[in-house]
């Protein structure tokens, strides 16, 4: 760890892991925390999760901070195999925020909660002085009963199929573009609640090993976490990973990589080889999974390897620091 916290520690990559492992875990150490899943599993039948949202701008093509705050926590619970039921919703508002903006964001959160079938039952409101916040920060926490137990990278086996439920990198790219006032609205965030998609996948009877929504750090970082936890390798085929053409082009211009760019409405599923087709059909039949694809396989190895379109191969590692736009 450095002497001071830089933005890199919040990027979801290696430095975020260092912060959690060196400062947070030693201080609070307990069984539920140390599993370090998207949510904590309590007594084997309850999942509990929390997330804070600090996105700029507050509203962006395809969503806003309110919708994001609801979907983010719903998804964390859904990825643990839980049925999201109740959410808290806490606001830290910077003095000067237009009331209309707040109203829009809260309405949007309510719409998202309704669509996801969760109730917002508690929360908190604080207002800080101008200059002490970025307009609006939101924290949500959520709780739900475990519906599909046993989802863990430890269940992965060599030969399993890795499925991505749709195109990679939409959210991160949309927000990055909205921030720079570039290509207005052409690329939308994929922000969506995934509990319905998880239900559709599970109803298919597919043997699902693990689920995770690749938010900060993107598809590549999440797959590295899978491989590391499972002690296995993953081999991906670049040509099979769905990426929207405009996202690929925007990332090329900005010097970003769609595989490291955040998603807010996609999930990575590892399923048994025998039931991969079943899983794929179930995902594709759902509106949020229309572009789902098998993007790779679990291997006996220990690294995440990408077979490139040019016929070469390279290693994918966890995101290092925040993705920074490059010079030329």
């Amino acid at each position, binding site marked *: 760890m*450095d002497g*001071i*916290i*830089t*933005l*890199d520690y919040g990027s979801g990559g*290696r*430095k975020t892991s260092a912060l959690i492992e060196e400062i947070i875990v030693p201080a609070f150490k307990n069984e539920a925390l140390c599993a370090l899943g998207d949510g904590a599993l309590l007594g084997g039948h309850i999942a509990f999760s929390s997330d804070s949202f600090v996105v700029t701008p507050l509203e962006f093509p395809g969503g806003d901070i309110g919708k994001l705050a609801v979907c983010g926590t719903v998804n964390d619970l859904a990825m643990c195999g839980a049925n999201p039921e109740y959410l808290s919703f806490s606001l830290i508002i910077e003095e000067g925020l237009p009331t209309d903006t707040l109203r829009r964001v809260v309405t949007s959160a309510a719409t998202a909660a309704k669509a996801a079938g969760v109730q917002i039952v508690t929360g908190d409101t604080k207002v800080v002085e101008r200059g002490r916040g970025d307009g609006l920060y939101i924290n949500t926490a959520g709780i739900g009963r475990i519906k599909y137990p046993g989802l863990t990278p430890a269940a992965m086996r060599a030969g399993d199929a890795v499925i991505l439920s749709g195109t990679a990198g939409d959210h991160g790219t949309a927000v990055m573009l909205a921030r*720079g006032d*570039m290509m207005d609205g052409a690329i939308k965030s994929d922000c969506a609640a995934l509990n319905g998609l998880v239900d559709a996948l599970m109803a298919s009877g597919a043997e699902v090993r693990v689920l995770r929504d690749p938010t900060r750090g993107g598809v590549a970082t999440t797959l590295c976490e899978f491989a590391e936890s499972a002690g296995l390798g993953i081999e991906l085929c670049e040509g099979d990973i769905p990426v929207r053409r405009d996202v690929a082009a925007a990332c090329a211009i*900005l*010097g970003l990589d769609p595989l490291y760019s955040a998603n807010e409405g996609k999930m990575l599923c590892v399923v048994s080889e025998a039931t991969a087709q079943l899983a794929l059909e179930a995902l594709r039949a759902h509106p949020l999974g229309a572009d789902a694809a098998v993007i790779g396989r679990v291997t006996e190895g220990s*690294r995440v*390897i990408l077979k*490139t*379109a*040019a*016929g*070469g*191969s*390279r*290693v994918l*590692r966890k995101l*290092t*620091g925040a993705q*920074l*736009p*490059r*010079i*030329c």
Partner: protein
Amino acid sequence: MRSEELLLRLGALTKHRWKLMEVCGTHTMSIARSGIKRLLPEGVELLSGPGCPVCVTPGEVMDAALELSVRPGVTVAAYGDMLRVPGTRRGDDLAHRRAGGADVRIVYSPMDVLDMAEAEPERQFVFLGVGFETTAPGTAAALLEAGRRGVDNFTVFSMLKRVEPALRALIASEGFAIDGFICPGHVAVITGADEFAFLPREYGLPAAVAGFEPEDILLAVCHLVEMLERGEPALVNDYERAVTAGGNELAQRAIERVFEPRRDIWRGLGEIEASGLGIRPEFAQFDAEVRFNIEIRPAGLKTPCRCGDVITGRIHPQDCPMFERECTPDDPLGPCMVSSEGACAAAYKYMC
């Protein structure tokens, strides 16, 4: 032509051993990302040259920028990958200065800085002008626009560099053993392909201006090997869809109007005559070095890493004793590990 066909052709062409160098960070990254290095015939070796602007920015110059960032009332604006470039002290970079309270902002274009300067007239805005002939025209345009709009709280700290003098210095350096150059497509869009005609003419080294898709690079490699095997070095433009012989004259005029060549320090290469672009005296009011009395003292500091040997093609990143051990993108020793375009970062991130 597709990659497989190009590789077959290259395999058939290659009879001897050849060392080729790319001198553009975007090429370095594309080569690493596509994994083509490992598909090349045994006789063909690709090495990275001084093509990443961040990588050739010396620590002494970064020290001056870091010092500027903590002056009261000063905002330093830079392209994103400048934030993690260390000065002469390890771990001291703009990202840490920002975390410590300095006003450091990431921008995509110097024009954005101009708008910021107009919106906040009480602050001084300094844009770190980094890059080669590619980013120089945009920087020149922003500076000219500042003059037109009368923005007097905007200055440029020019770290801009020219490719040609660096290539000459590299070729003249001890132990130089490169057989041909993959020339930077983006630079050539501005300068024109003919900028690189001196390579075959004066040094007998074949040169191919290349685009950035893996197929573009493989095509250039094919042409270079073909010329080498025949013993007929020449300049080929393999990026005709973007590059003309003479380049973009408007951009060249803008560069010439605002900047003049000056002696400059390159990390790994040392001081090279006429290799930097300084702001002309008639634009001194927009020159951060003048306004803030910046003086760069060449420190001649040696880092324990071998960035200098990497960017002169003497070693591969993996051959540096610090690579992946002491020097990682999280805690880079040298700038080749900082920028996503750097040879070491590309090797760390993408290669097996």
